[in-house]
């Protein structure tokens, strides 16, 4: 009898140890990005693409400052907040079958505008996104799944895809899967060249994130600022290095 209880105590200790170890490893995966972030070029308009990444396929760079790229909404009981930015920089590498093989884009926290100056400062402050310590919100694309050609003309091809990668906000990285995103590859034409050089790509995605998942806590979270932030992203990109 005593022997049995000692055994069950040892088993309980093992189970507790395993649970703690699993918890610690989950915490570690949630805290750090598996890949280091890409560096920005000197002019700050692009991210540096390594030779290894460039060799995978066609490189597209984000067209910054030309159109709105990110729009988010927070629907809280006491206040609705909308924000946007057109300063996203980044790249993707596209394969021949419409898929994306890798990519990364950075949203500078201090570029987020909500329509009220003081609120913009609050968003970037230490209490919220802490732009000083974590200047960018980063999406690192690992790959795309469920690539289905949805529309095709001589001028463009549109695919529905699932984006799989990691999202880093406030220095905390979490895996993310965005279903029903779309990729439109638009061939260069006289019309497109008036606005941007090269073949163009539009990445469109709708998704949401919970601020509490990214270690953002504040007394007004859930009251004046919703925990769930709905994000719409439309990134326009070009395969021309000139833009």
């Amino acid at each position: 009898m005593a022997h049995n209880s000692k055994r069950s105590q040892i088993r309980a200790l093992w189970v507790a140890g395993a649970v703690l170890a699993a918890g610690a490893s989950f915490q570690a995966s949630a805290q750090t990005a598996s890949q280091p972030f890409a560096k920005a070029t000197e002019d700050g308009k692009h991210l540096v693409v390594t030779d290894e990444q460039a060799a995978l396929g066609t490189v597209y760079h984000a067209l910054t400052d030309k159109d709105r790229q990110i729009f988010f909404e927070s629907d809280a009981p006491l206040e609705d907040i909308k924000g946007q930015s057109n300063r996203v920089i980044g790249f993707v590498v596209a394969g021949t079958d419409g898929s994306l093989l890798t990519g990364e884009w950075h949203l500078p926290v201090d570029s987020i505008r909500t329509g009220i100056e003081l609120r913009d400062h609050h968003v970037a402050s230490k209490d919220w996104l802490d732009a000083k310590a974590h200047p960018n919100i980063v999406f690192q694309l690992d790959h795309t799944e469920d690539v289905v050609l949805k529309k095709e003309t001589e001028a463009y091809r549109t695919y529905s895809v699932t984006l799989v990668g990691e999202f880093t906000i406030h220095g905390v990285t979490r895996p993310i899967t965005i279903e029903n995103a779309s990729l439109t590859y638009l061939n260069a034409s006289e019309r497109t060249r008036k606005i941007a050089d090269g073949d163009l790509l539009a990445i469109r995605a709708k998704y949401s994130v919970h601020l509490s998942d990214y270690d953002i806590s504040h007394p007004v979270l859930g009251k004046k600022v919703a925990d769930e932030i709905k994000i719409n992203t439309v990134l326009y990109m070009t395969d021309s290095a000139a833009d």
Partner: protein
Amino acid sequence: MRPRTIVFAIAAVAVLVSVGAWAATGAKPFTRFENKENTEVNAQNELGDLFVDTEPEGDQVELGKIDSGFAFGLLPAGPGKASLSVAAVAGVAVFVSAAAWFFDRKKKGAAQTADQGDSHGS
């Protein structure tokens, strides 16, 4: 008309005008001023126009717009000019009205005391 009544009337009109301005500028919770940068970004759509009708039907991703025009809010949105709001106007109106009422009462009290002093003296 007594000065107190005039102050009350002006305060009431100021509050009514501020409520009217709040309603007329979109009934927003916070005051904000026109921001040229936001207006410009809201207007950007050249690239978007190139990609019109290229999305799969029913899966459209819309980019909304943030408010970039002037709005006289219910509450202040910061110090300086952003503090102008219905709440600020109402606060000043209540303070001025209370001060007018207080001084009027004090004046009335002093006059009554003086009257009483006169009647005792005579």
